[in-house]
């Protein structure tokens, strides 16, 4: 198992945070304010796993726990049988890269500088990037179709270009596992398909294991071999996409009546929402 979560629980107003900070706005420490409760997920090497669920179900929290950014209060995350808790941020970053929903740098970095930041976990404390790092960055730029933007300022790019640059930055980390948080959320249809085919290619050709949180059921159906359904902080169901993605589960998850059927021309299951339950 490449990456696995074992009985994770996490609350933003948890005992540790509660003592020093008090509960967050609107949160109740004594109530059942757990963002995640007893979640176990296993991600096979080379797989492309989709994380589905309504807003606030804990997708982003789970991704942050899998990336080691948040530390679980109960349970553990393991990367190749080693607990994430005992690894340094640097050691984790050499294996796991994350593409967040949005990235807002405070300064006007160029695209190349953004991509080269992906080399950070591979460089020593006082080491500057060398020709090898530059070659890896260029390869990542080419793979994401952003090479022509290399000397542009990141902040001047369109949403789709930004997202591809952030993916390039994650690729420059040479990760074994790539975690993506709604990578296509702000993109138009053309870019959505482009990112989808890019991810598929990276997964197939470079054997990058991926976990993808998304609201786009059709994207998940076309890309993912495995799905994890999250609701109110716990796992509703997990398994192969074709078994898990049905009109029954869509109704359970979102409270929406939907037609779920195999689409010949698309070559995968498609979901057509009909009405709210």
């Amino acid at each position, binding site marked *: 198992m490449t990456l696995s979560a074992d009985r994770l629980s996490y609350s933003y107003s948890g005992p*540790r*945070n509660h*003592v*020093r*900070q008090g509960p967050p706005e609107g949160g109740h420490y004594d109530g059942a304010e757990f963002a995640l409760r007893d979640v176990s997920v296993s991600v096979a090497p080379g797989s492309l796993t989709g994380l589905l669920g309504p807003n606030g179900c804990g997708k982003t929290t789970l991704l*942050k726990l899998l*990336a*080691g*950014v948040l530390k679980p209060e109960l349970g553990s995350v393991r990367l190749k049988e080693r607990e994430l808790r005992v690894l*340094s*941020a*640097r*050691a*984790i*970053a*050499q294996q*796991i*890269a*994350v593409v*967040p929903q949005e*990235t*807002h*740098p*405070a*300064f*006007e*970095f*160029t695209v*190349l*500088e953004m991509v080269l*930041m*992906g080399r*950070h*976990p591979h*460089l020593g*404390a*006082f080491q*500057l*990037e*060398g*020709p090898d790092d*530059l070659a890896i960055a*260029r390869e990542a*730029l*080419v793979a994401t*179709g952003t*090479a*022509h933007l*290399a*000397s542009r300022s990141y902040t001047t790019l369109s949403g789709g270009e930004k997202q591809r640059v952030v993916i390039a930055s994650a690729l420059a*980390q040479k990760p074994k596992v790539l975690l993506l948080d709604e990578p296509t959320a702000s993109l138009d249809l053309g870019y959505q398909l482009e990112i989808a085919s890019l991810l598929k290619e990276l997964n197939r050709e470079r054997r990058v294991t991926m976990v993808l949180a998304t609201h786009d059921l059709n994207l998940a159906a076309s890309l993912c071999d495995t799905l994890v359904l999250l609701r109110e902080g716990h796992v509703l169901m997990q398994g192969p996409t074709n078994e898990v993605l049905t009109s029954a589960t869509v109704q359970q998850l979102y409270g929406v009546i939907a037609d779920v059927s195999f689409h010949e021309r698309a070559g995968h299951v498609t979901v057509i929402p009909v009405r709210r339950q």
Partner: protein
Amino acid sequence: MSPPARVAASARQVPAQVRELPAIRPIRTRLAITIAGFGALALAACLLTPLLGSTRISLTRAFDRSIPFADNVDAQIFFVARLPRVLSGALVGAALATAGVVFQALLRNPLATPFTLGVSAGASLGAMLVLIFGISIGFGPFSAVPLASFAGAAVATAIVYRLATPYRRAMSTAVLLLAGVTLNSFFSALIMFVQYIADFAQAYRASRWLMGDLDVGSYQPIIAAVPLVAVAFAMFAMLPAALNVLSLGPDAAATRGVDVVRAQRLAFFSASLATSAAVSLAGPIGFVGIVVPHLVRLMVGVDHRIVLPASALFGAAFLVVCDLGARTLLAPVELPVGVLTAMIGGPFFLWLLVRRA
């Protein structure tokens, strides 16, 4: 792309896009060019400005050891009046400029200055108490005013740190900013109170100190400040790559292998230390800490591995030149340099900003 690289590229059948990549100067070369350029500027400023001033001096006479120092007016002007000002200007300019860079990256806010988090207000309050109540304690090379202002800065730093650091988690930049701004106002109110109850002469001395002045009078306070700034700079040396990644946000930094809590703590304490040392030496000289980082970014880009050393050198040159203006523009009257930094730096900065847009 150079011809051999083109051949290599076509031989490996690299996609057409690779050929679109612009030639990019490696970071090593950029760093070397930047340090050489800004280093030459700082060196020139430090070597030339002691020669200039309201009184013309002869360098040969100043260094002529056959004349006793007491009779050698040129030597007295050079070594007593001018050189300490130039050296303290270089030290304070470098410290404030780099502290500004680090605070801007830590707070992810281009409007941050070394004084944003209340360090200088704490330092000022400390200095005010000594100036107005006429306390004269001190030990070693430290005299009462710098000692008290350094202590005030340390207290302010400790308060802000305590407020903004939840247990084992990343600092909240929003809490840092709010705590700093509030502490600034609180200390300013105390300063006004202390000034109000003081008599006229004391209040005048206090308000002069608050303008910031490099006329430190001797080498003693400089020697006291050098080790503090040196420690801060040694800590800065560990930061630039982490600051780059931190300016994407704490989560993004963590997923690129930065120990966020450690890096933030290091940035906060090193920048606070540099600011405290600078303010206790020369008072709160404004504008250097915000404008020099921005000027440097406009010239060399935003990579902190280049911006940080360049700001140290450019900050030193900038403040030394501003102080030359302060000494000479209204000669024989000498202005406090804090009055001039914004008057010279402001229009220059606006010009660069407009020219770029």
